[in-house]
């Protein structure tokens, strides 16, 4: 899903927006984010919502029941935590999570997720251009990438 979103963004994004298909998060994310003014991260999530739904949040305000569908390295939120602890996280960092329909192996995106790709790409572009995110930290809870 993220790969498809980045491919679409390559056609849409202006020159001062750097697009990276990272594959999976890791401590390297801190290196990538260092020096940026704003960062938008697109990833597949399991948030108990309808497939194709988009959740938007700041890293420290991730919903408590959120799971990232990753099998590699450390989870995205932990990677962002590393970046923050090393003072490399841009002040305006937003995560856009797309609810998956299934994490079973397959060759195609599900119809609902495919339909969400354009929407999440447009939202990412707006945020990268400076639009403020309404995402707020929820009361209590801890974002730990689990």
């Amino acid at each position, binding site marked *: 899903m993220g790969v498809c979103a980045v491919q679409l963004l390559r056609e849409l994004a202006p020159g001062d927006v750097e697009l990276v*298909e*990272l*594959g*999976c998060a*890791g*401590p*390297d994310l*801190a*290196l990538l984010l260092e020096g940026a003014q704003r960062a938008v991260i697109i990833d597949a999530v399991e948030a108990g919502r309808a497939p194709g739904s988009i959740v938007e949040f700041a890293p420290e305000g991730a919903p408590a029941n959120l799971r990232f569908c990753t*099998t*590699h*390295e*450390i989870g995205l939120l*932990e990677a962002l*935590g*590393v970046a923050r*602890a*090393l003072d490399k996280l841009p002040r305006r960092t937003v995560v856009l999570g797309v609810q998956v329909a299934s*994490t*079973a*192996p397959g*060759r195609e995106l599900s119809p609902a997720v495919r339909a969400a790709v354009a929407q999440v790409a447009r939202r990412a572009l707006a945020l990268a251009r400076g639009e403020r995110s309404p995402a707020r930290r929820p009361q209590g809870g801890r974002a730990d990438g689990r």
Partner: protein
Amino acid sequence: MRELEINIENITRVEGHGNIVVTVREGNIVELRLEITESPRFFEAMVVGRAWSEVQAICCRICGICSIAHSNAALRAVEGALGITPSEQTALLRRLIHYGEVLQSHLLHCYFLAAPDFCGAPSIVPMIETHREVVERGLRLKRLANDICRAVGGRHVHPITMAVNGFTKLPELEELRALRERLEEARGDVQATVEFFAQAELPQFAREDAKFLSLRAEGQYALVEGEIATSDGRRAPVESYQELVREYVVEHSTAKHAGLGSEDVPYAVGALARVNINYDLLHPKAKQAAEALGVAPPCGNPFMNTRAQVVEVVHCVEEAIALLGELERRGLAAEETAVEVRGGRGVGAVEAPRGTLFYDVEVGDDGLVSRANLIIPTNQNLHSIEADMRALVPQILTRGEDEVAHTLEMLVRAYDPCISCATHLVEVHFE
């Protein structure tokens, strides 16, 4: 303590998902297994019916940490099937990017997965508060390793320039010169890495009958080619891998296990295996590092795999500096990369960061893949991990349950398993 029940779900700081289950009653182990719960990945089935030119691009996606090793093994297998011998320039560039990935992977494991144990931290973020300089150093070195892979492969993971019989784009000589200078400047950080891991305390343990397997090549510490070699003296060409490496399905794991030869003896692959089998071919500075780290063959302590990885970091930095110098002297030239398609079978074997990786690919006369068999390093280690746990548990049974559990997790982490790579099934039918 003669009663013990350990059930660790989702071992932390390993790549992928696995559980440790150990039950001891009246001092006897009644249950012990490393459950691999990762979903199967189906890559062997996925490449069947695809073109010879697609195997590398598909299979490098098996893993985000060892995608270059998968690329190199896949390309060697496909080239073997098509009867192609790539140019010396291609061989040198593939070796260079392979060094870059070994560095990426080992630095990730040492600094971000293993180091928290040595700093008394549960994970990376708390470790930053107490050992910030250590984490910053790990990131600096990893950035350099990433940049080696990006310069040759087009990006730091899932390379896009590596192709059958060559590269779709060559790096600029200026880029290579800059990388060599950065590697030379990084020697201070590399030495600090040796010193840090030399002082980290490790459990003292070794299974008496532990065996190791890796590639071995004449005149060179084998990472991208060689014949199969074992610590008990067996040798075989890679094409005959199935005589030595027997894979099989186990009930409690979605990843297959492997045993040596017909006796199904557990064996380990990875940095410690390579250092045990190829110590004489290490760069002199890597041998100095091995001495400082207390790594000397025959070493049967699996916890020392992390230190063996540090030895290989030194080796790969020095070898990469020399190789970059050679490439600068030779220059780079555009080459003919056309391929004449014919049917055949090829076996490619490389040393991925975690151990020996086998690709066995058959291509039809139509250029489509008819069969593929992949043997992943972590699959080969799972049997050895369980054998180690079985030998270790009686030795630490009198300790508190938390300490036993933590020691077993450290044991699994020491192998640096890549569980996502290891989970695949042979027969899947896509409609």
